[in-house]
């Protein structure tokens, strides 16, 4: 396979690719150091630009006030949500009432100096880093982590966790409901097994609740 395009790398990084295409590109990345470096450069670039982009977003919000703005916001975000494979889900209010909306699982690295770095899908994190996961707007959810070594565990929904020394891909999934009858850990183990042990290939746990997810690579310092 020839080297992957910028578009393909960008779509990979926002987790927008269907599973077969993602697997094809990841196979290429595993074999091609040039493309791996390009992908790494994109991640570094996105992280470095985060403050500037936040400022530009604030500038845009301030300069485009309009009565229709709320409608645009909802429809654009809904459009994006419909197309994003990974972090957007349909939210069900109850078994009988369905309310369409979206929920995103966000992850941030908490740095010693008090600053935070947003984690993008596929980012590389390091042992010892403190990471906080959150689903804005959701009050009740369960966090479960699946890693490439076969470990499945719950993460706290309050506070942060410190990454251990495990190496490899890890996926964190938020299950957005409070159903004690659902065994989230068992569902996660089954999903990981079905994905051949590769957490990147796990898109959903398949439980009867909305889900949101993000994955990252963990490396030693």
């Amino acid at each position, binding site marked *: 396979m020839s080297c992957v395009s910028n578009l393909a790398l960008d*779509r990979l990084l926002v987790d*927008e690719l269907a599973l077969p295409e993602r697997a094809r590109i990841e196979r290429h990345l595993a074999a091609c150091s040039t493309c791996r470096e390009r992908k790494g450069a*994109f991640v570094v670039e996105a992280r470095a630009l985060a403050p500037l982009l936040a400022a530009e977003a604030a500038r845009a919000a301030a300069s485009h006030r309009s009565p229709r703005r709320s409608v*645009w*916001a909802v429809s654009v975000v809904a459009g994006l949500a419909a197309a994003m494979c990974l972090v957007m889900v349909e939210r069900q209010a109850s078994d009988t009432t369905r309310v369409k909306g979206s929920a995103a699982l966000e992850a941030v690295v908490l740095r010693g100096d008090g600053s935070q770095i947003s984690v993008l899908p596929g980012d590389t994190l390091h042992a010892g880093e403190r990471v906080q996961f959150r689903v804005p707007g959701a009050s009740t959810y369960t966090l479960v982590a699946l890693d490439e070594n076969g470990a499945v565990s719950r993460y706290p929904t309050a506070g942060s966790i410190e990454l251990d020394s495990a190496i490899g891909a890890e996926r964190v999934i938020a299950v957005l409901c409070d159903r004690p009858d659902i065994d989230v850990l068992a569902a996660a183990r089954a999903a990981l097994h079905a994905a051949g042990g590769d957490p990147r290939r796990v898109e959903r746990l398949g439980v009867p609740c909305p889900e949101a997810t993000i994955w990252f690579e963990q490396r030693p310092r």
Partner: protein
Amino acid sequence: MALDRLALEELYRRYGASVLRRARALLRDEAAARDAMHDVFLKAWRAGDSFRRDASPMTWLYHITTNHCLNQLRDQQRRDELLREQHACADEAASSDDRIVVAQVLASLPEELRAIAVYYFIDQMSHDEIASIVGLSRRTIGNRVDELRRRFGGERERCEAIA
């Protein structure tokens, strides 16, 4: 109003780096690139319900950014030509400034080839990817890429003037 701000932040956070990278590569001017990013997200915002839900947002934004920047370059080229006619900036026009080189190379192409040149030479997209982004058949893209390669001497690497 908090929802608006959050929605915009999400657009910028998720797609801003990609859009800004494309704008910088084409416009070669930081202020112009940031303005382009601003305009592109405004277009995404305004697209609302007509936003193609079945397409990838990233692909959609690539397309919008490319067209927006090509229009900017075309307008800049026209302004440069006007200024040259008036002998007002002959020195600047003759310089090898990156932005002018990109604008001149792209301006040498017919309108229908410009975006394809960007996708092929700068992004190194496959024919399939270009076909999906511009909405033409793979065969048509193949023909147009052949034409581009003839124009630039047949080698992708020889088009570094654009990239």
